[in-house]
């Protein structure tokens, strides 16, 4: 069996020293090649968990292993070649073109004084093609619509050539059609041996593309496993504290809240 892409062991994190734990002994092995959705109410620790995986936050106790190696053993640059982030709200202040923006994803492979080379440009171009926005390459990022901008951000992260792609609520600001487009791109990326870990507030988005689901509440893991085992009425009810029903519509799970 291949080692998990990310192995989270007993991770506890607090924002304030004496505060409540934002992550409370979280343990989960994220299978390599999976699309794992992290679901949970506001404040359940989803984004905090992504930030701990990135190394942006240091856990109080516990450890994270990435591709079988302790995360703190990686330098920041090494880690950024393995893990890419699509943040919740990417804000680009200057009018970089989509291509120039995607090219920034080569930073982990360039030292301080070097400029992007021909091969870096080729990787950025391939990333734009793989999310289907190569036609927008020369438009300013600032002029893109919400959905296009999100795809540009995904392309920028893909340009890092990461094994693991973290996405923080990638569809939360998008309308139905754009959300569907972004989810479709995420699904297509998995085929290339990449592990995708993303947070979402939309259980139906999770059932649409996820292979695995991690349910969280108050910094604790409620359940973690393959979609079919975890996306059930009782577990979702325990996660969200509202009566949730999961029904089968033409072979697909649909999550509904009871009034």
């Amino acid at each position: 069996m291949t080692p998990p892409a990310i192995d989270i062991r007993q991770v506890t994190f607090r924002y304030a020293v004496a505060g409540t734990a934002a992550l409370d002994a979280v343990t989960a092995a994220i299978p390599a090649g999976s699309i794992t959705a992290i679901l949970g109410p506001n404040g359940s620790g989803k984004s905090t968990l992504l930030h701990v995986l990135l190394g942006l936050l240091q856990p109080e106790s516990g450890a994270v292993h990435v591709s079988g190696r302790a995360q703190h053993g990686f330098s920041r640059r090494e880690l950024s070649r393995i893990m890419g982030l699509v943040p919740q709200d990417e804000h680009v202040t200057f009018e970089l073109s989509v291509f120039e923006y995607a090219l920034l994803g080569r930073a982990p492979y360039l030292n301080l004084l070097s400029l992007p080379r021909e091969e870096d440009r080729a990787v950025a171009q391939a990333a734009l093609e793989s999310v289907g926005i190569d036609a927008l390459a020369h438009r300013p990022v600032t002029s893109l619509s919400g959905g296009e901008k999100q795809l540009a951000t995904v392309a920028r992260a893909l340009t890092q050539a990461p094994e693991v792609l973290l996405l923080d609520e990638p569809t939360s600001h998008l309308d139905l059609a754009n959300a569907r487009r972004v989810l479709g791109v995420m699904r297509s990326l998995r085929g290339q041996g990449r592990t995708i870990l993303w947070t979402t507030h939309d259980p139906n988005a999770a059932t649409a593309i996820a292979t695995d689901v991690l349910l969280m509440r108050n910094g604790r893991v409620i359940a973690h496993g393959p979609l079919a085992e975890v996306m059930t009425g009782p577990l979702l009810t325990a996660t969200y504290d509202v009566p949730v029903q999961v029904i089968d519509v033409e072979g697909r799970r649909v999550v509904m809240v009871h009034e």
Partner: protein
Amino acid sequence: MTEIRTGTLPQVSDQERQGRRRVAILAVVLLALVGVSLFLGRYPGPYWTPLSALRDDALAQRLVLNLRLPRILGAVMVGMVLAASGVSFQMIFRNPLVDSGFLGVSAGASFGASLAIVALGGAPLTIQISAAVFGTLGLVSSYLLGTRIRYGDWVLRLVLAGIAVSALYSSGTSLLKYAADPLRQLPEITFWMLGGLWSLTWADILQIAPVVVPCLLVILLLRWRLNLLSLRDETAYSLGVSAGRERLVLLLAAVLATAAVVSKTGLIGWVGLIVPHIARRWVGSDAQRALPGAMLLGALFTLFCDDIARTALTGELPLGILTSMLGAAIFMALMIRDGAGMRR
């Protein structure tokens, strides 16, 4: 392992090629203006020194070599430094509306210079050092205050902090002016704050070049990193960028270079704000082109204004007045036309 497909080699886009061409054009135009400026002046007649005078007139030769040439080089350096710091400040603080004038650097430097003139004896070196120290202090206090303000987003907080810190320093400067000897010290303060290059000599150029040239080189070499630093911290971190350290190096280079030139020339306003805007519009926002473009354009703008300053009237117009006048007019025009690139 992750396979990354390398697609078709991307064509360099027309915009990019055009941007590069324009940077080259700016360089050529700057060289031409430097050449022309050598002949501009009020000797022997108004406005123009004919070639024949340069051949036959020993005074004209000395004038061109010992007064005009260092002054022209000074203008080029000042313009490059102010524009390069403008681009750096704007990208590092993710805010197209800041320059050294908005972040307490200019107000701090003015206070430092006034303090040196009034209380520390007023030797040129003391003025320079005091201006540099308080200029840096102005930036640091604006930044620290910006991180503590609990109102608005980062862009707004930083501008507000800069305004508050600048106001504080300005009131200090006013106090010093009030206390200054009205015959000896006050005119000196006023002239310093008006800004101008009339006093620049080869000795001044040789003093500031060892600071300015390495600082500009550092900023130029790190120009692609400016793009990375203009992203949010979370993203920069995920790209393996040590944002804190890189920002510190670039800010230090920008502030040291600015303080070095400003301490010699006094306040030359608006170049750092307006030039980067126009450069981005002309050669593109990617700092790979925007930074050299802005430096060349800044040198052109400053040299052009200084040519007017020293030729237009029999006396000398303070350069700072000209750059502010032109800069503010251009800024208003840009804001009205399209919000100065502040699309959000």
